[in-house]
Each structure stands twice: as structure tokens, then as C-alpha cells.
């Protein structure tokens, strides 16, 4: 599971009002390189919840993302920043661990990089 996905996941448990972001419990992080695409980064940026993203990247062991979201102009021209953004968003994988509902603490396991968001009958 990459941080792009983590930024799009929220707790789906019935009755939970504040299910985002899920807290990350790290057991194993893997880095997998993938080709950078500046257009994609610029297009996805507005959809990213920056605080959740920068916190999550720190949890995954990568400290390069600033706490405050960058100005759009930084994305336009700062290639070095784009590289780091790309790395945090798309190259860090949570292979083993869990995602925790911020309200209930319920664990959604992550195994082989795949989060299991299936709910039990009483949670639906």
C-alpha cells in the first residue's frame, strides 16, 4: 500500500464520523522505484490531504515532506521537490502492518502490501 492509497482510505465502520486519516502501524516498509511523471503529481496534488500525507510519510520513515503544503509554484518549477513528493507518494510501500480507525482503534490489516478493509457483520 502506497501513501497515495492511504490518503484515499478512510474507516468505513458504521457510525464512525471521523474516519480519516487511518493511523499507520508499520511492520515492514519496502521501497520500489517507479518512473516519475510530473503531470500526474501536479494533477493529484489538489486531492491530497497534505497533513495526513506528510504525517504518514514520517511514520513510514521518510522525513522530507514539509508539514505545510507547498505552494503550487513549487510544484511547477522545483524538480527536486517533485522528486521527493513522488518518492513519498508512490515509491514507499507498507508491505506489512495495519491501518487503525482513528475513532474506534479497529485494525485493518495490511499484508503483502494489500489492505483488508472488509468489515464484520456488526460493523456494516
Amino acid at each position: 500500500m502506497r501513501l497515495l492509497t492511504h490518503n484515499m482510505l478512510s474507516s468505513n465502520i458504521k457510525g464512525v464520523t471521523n474516519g480519516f486519516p487511518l493511523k499507520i502501524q508499520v511492520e515492514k516498509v519496502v521501497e520500489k522505484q517507479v518512473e516519475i511523471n510530473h503531470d500526474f503529481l501536479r494533477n493529484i496534488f489538489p486531492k491530497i490531504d497534505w497533513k495526513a500525507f506528510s504525517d504518514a510519510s514520517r511514520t513510514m520513515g521518510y522525513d522530507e515532506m514539509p508539514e505545510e503544503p507547498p505552494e503550487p509554484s513549487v510544484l511547477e518549477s522545483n524538480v527536486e521537490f517533485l522528486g521527493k513528493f513522488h518518492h513519498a507518494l508512490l515509491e514507499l510501500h507498507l508491505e506489512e502492518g495495519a491501518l487503525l480507525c482513528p475513532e474506534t482503534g479497529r485494525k485493518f490489516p495490511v499484508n503483502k502490501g494489500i489492505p483488508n478493509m472488509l468489515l464484520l457483520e456488526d460493523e456494516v
Partner: protein
Amino acid sequence: MDENVNFQEKAASAIPHFSINYRFNVNLIPTSWSNCLFDLSVSICFQVFGDQKFDVGCFHDLNMILVFIVMPGNSFEMSYKIAQIRLVSSHPEVYEPCDDSFALVDALLSDRNNLLELKPMLCMEVGCGSGYVITSLMLMLGEEANGAQFIATDINHHAIRVTQETMEAHGVYAELINTDVASGLENRLAGSVDLLVVNPPYVPTPEDEVGREGIASAWAGGENGRSVIDKILPVAEKLLSKRGWLYMVTLTANNPSQICRQMMKKGYASKIVVQRSTVEESLHIIKFWKDNDIEADTNDAITNSKAVPLGIVDSVRLQMQRLSFWGSSDINTTTN
């Protein structure tokens, strides 16, 4: 056996570069034969000597279809790539690629230029099964996808695992989530998915068969096969971006015209992009897109045009690609 020798001779004379190093037996029994679809029963067994690559092509001769192998240098240039059946992983509890999967991929292929023009940023498949469709989608967009990211979900964890293996075998990557439709993603991904593809469980079954664990969840669709489809459609509406497109597989039994009318009321235009018919049933691959000019008037005719059917040779070529050629075991695709 004689028939097979005949084929080899035909192939040898028809294809100048056919090499005697490639021995093969071909049995082809075409069954139903129509402009839109023909089902083949193919049994291919051959042994390949050496590491040489080759392409398989075919042409038809009256009622027989000749499969031939072309040496490199004379290979057909495939202008598109899709998943190869031989690289698709499997598991007893996971739905294997079948006519409906192929029809959905064909629909996407036929729309490939439009898809590239759309420049989707986030693409998603609900119910990825073996991974055949999402892998094919990633391959067919390829480098021209301009950094698009792909997400796939499945309620069956075996399917997720199989999809992961299939993607790895093809050298592509999509984010996988084990979940029911898009549960957990709906809120944050709302209005963000530019391309959504779904091959839902559409088979009419008793209601209590719906949502059961295991492979039945791949086809059990309850009354009129609509249980899961009707659950997916509102989620699709929530996920799709303003310019987003949805491709969905349906059966005649699902009442596709009614689905289209329903979607029209929500502001979606629709078109049947591929239709495949057998004696018993018809598959309709429907494409939905947001259209502000759509009148919410159920008396209006739905935008509904049959796609130009693939030519026979192209269709067979696609079918042939899907067969696994490696190994010495007979491969059988059974048909009606």
C-alpha cells in the same frame, strides 16, 4: 491425425518463412458463427525448439481456421497489448477470464483512442478477479497513459492475491484493496475516478447465493442478476469524476435498457459498445458518461448503438492471443 498433417502442409505452403522447427497439431472446430461472435473449440499442442520468439496468426478457410506460426521478422505487429492468458495466475476460488472478460477488454480496446484522449488520471476496476482486465487496461494504455494510476478491488482475498501475481507476471502495478466494492475508498475518492471498469456478478441466482464466500461471489447476482449491479451503480456515480467513464458488463437478463434509463435520470448518457451473443444469452458491454444535456425523460430513446463488430480475423487473433501455448498439454477452450 491426417487433418493435422494437412494443416501443417497448408501452413508450410502458405507461409514462406514457416520453419519446420515448429511442430504443431491443430484441431479447430468452429461452432456458432456470426458476425459479432464466433466461438471456437481449439486444441493446440506443439513443441517449440529453442528460445526463438514467434507470433501466432491465423486466417480462415471456409469452415476451418488455420493457425500458423510466423518467424520473427515477419511477425504481425500488434498495435496494442493486452494480458496474456498464459501469464494470468489462477486459484480454484477465483473466476478465470472468460467471454465476459474478453468482451470487456475488447470494448476498452475498441475505445482505446478515446481513452488516451481522455487522459485518465485515476483508473479503477471493481471486482478484479484474476486481474485479466485491469492488467489488459494497463498494458493497452501503456506508456501513453501519462502517469495514470490504477486501483483494483475485490471482495475475495484469493482474487486479490491472484491479481497481484498476474500483474507481476506482466510487469505492471496497480494498487490493490481487499474490500466490498469500494468500501473505505468512497469518501476520499469521490468525484476522482476518471475510468471505472466493472465485470459484476450478473448471473440471475436465488438471493441467498449473493455475497457468499468463495468463487460464487464472482457470478451470483440474485434476482435478474441485479443485486450487486444495483449496489455498484450508486457507488460508481459517487466515484466518477465529471469527465469519468464507466464500462460495465451486463446480460440481457439484467435488463440493460432499464439500467441505462436509470442512469439517464442521474445525468449519464450510455452506449452499448460491444455485444456478444450466444444461443442462450447476450452480453452487453455498456459505457456510461456524464452528459449535461441528457433529459431525464424515460420516453426518450436511449443512446444505443451497436459497435462495429470486429472483423473475423481480428476477432480470432484476439482469441488466439488468449490461449496458452506453452507446454505440451492440450489446451481446450470449450464452447457451446
